[in-house]
């Protein structure tokens, strides 16, 4: 022990600056990841909100009518679009509520708790956003192309504006899903320990 102590203190002097610099550098990259996480989170929130709003305000009334058919198309005529609006609204509100946790992980880059929580909740939000986007894509595809085998007519040929708004909302939801994918991978990368 007596022989070891001077060696170990010299070793500590030799080691400690190295440990300090590497810890500072590694804390630096974690902080950079946390800042980018915060910015991407805001972008995803805007995109999810835009998707929900665009689909929710898609309503079109054609200027002619007959006695038996209505020529009005709104998002709640199709239950899938209602699910889409609700799902994207949930994702947008989750992203708003997760901003404080993101700020906490900027301030304290080495704590694993907030990052792990954000990773788990981001994964659930990703699957919710992708589910809404995928279901709405199936209906929008059907509305654009119809289906000859099942005798389903392509309603987009009549309701042009409605279809455009719905398609735009679906694109925004996929952008949200891609951003959430990057958020999950970045959180996983920043969780590494030395």
């Amino acid at each position, binding site marked *: 022990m007596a022989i070891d102590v001077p060696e170990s203190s010299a070793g500590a002097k030799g080691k400690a600056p190295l440990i300090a610099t590497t810890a500072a550098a590694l804390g630096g990259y974690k902080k950079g990841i946390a800042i980018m996480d915060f910015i991407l989170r805001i972008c995803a929130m805007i995109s999810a909100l835009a998707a929900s709003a665009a689909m929710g305000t898609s309503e079109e009334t054609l200027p002619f009518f007959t006695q038996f058919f209505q020529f009005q198309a709104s998002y709640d005529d199709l239950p899938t679009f209602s699910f889409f609006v609700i799902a994207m609204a949930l994702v947008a509100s989750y992203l708003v509520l997760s901003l404080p946790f993101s700020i906490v992980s900027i301030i304290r880059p080495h704590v694993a708790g907030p990052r792990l929580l954000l990773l788990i909740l981001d994964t659930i939000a990703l699957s919710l956003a992708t589910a809404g986007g995928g279901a709405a894509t199936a209906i929008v595809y059907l509305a654009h192309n119809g289906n000859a085998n099942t005798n389903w007519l392509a309603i987009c040929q009549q309701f042009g504006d409605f279809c455009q708004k719905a398609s735009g909302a679906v694109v925004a939801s996929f952008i949200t899903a891609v951003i959430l994918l990057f958020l999950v991978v970045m959180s*996983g990368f920043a969780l590494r320990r030395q």
Partner: protein
Amino acid sequence: MMKAGELEIGEAKSSTPISGVNRGISILDFILRILAFVGTLASAIAMGTTNETLPFFTQFTRFRAEYDDLPTFTFFVVANAGVSAYLVLSLPLSIFHIVRSSAQKSRNILIFFDTAMLALLTAGASAAAAIVYLAHKGNTKANWFAICQQFNSFCERTSGSLIGSFVGAFALILLIFLSAVALSRR
């Protein structure tokens, strides 16, 4: 020298329990991966082998329903097949994590691919679910007729194949969660 250095830094006192828990996590990861593989493969096969022909016919309408009549179902089959192929190929990596529980870069790679496959699987499953819902209920506003009233066994088969896909998606969420927990415990 090594012992004094480690005591000064303060680590390596509790490494054995942590690597034991990590090993348990890796074994659970392997089991969940096999479960997800079985689920997605069963889904792809169940959807891909649907074929129903009604016993009557007219001159103008076909009374035969197959999965590739609806492009969404084709996408569903392709997505499920792709995800099940990925899960099989990731089994060796999972076994590697059981053996060496402190690997970090490979766990990161696994998280990335698991998340991408989760997105693909959920998109396929939800698109097929939307079409199945439409086939069951129809839509009066868009004049879309509910084809399930005629094609009973086709509809049952496609609805049942969605279950395996959703089980696979849930298992993938748990896999991502487990990988993250194993990464953050060192």
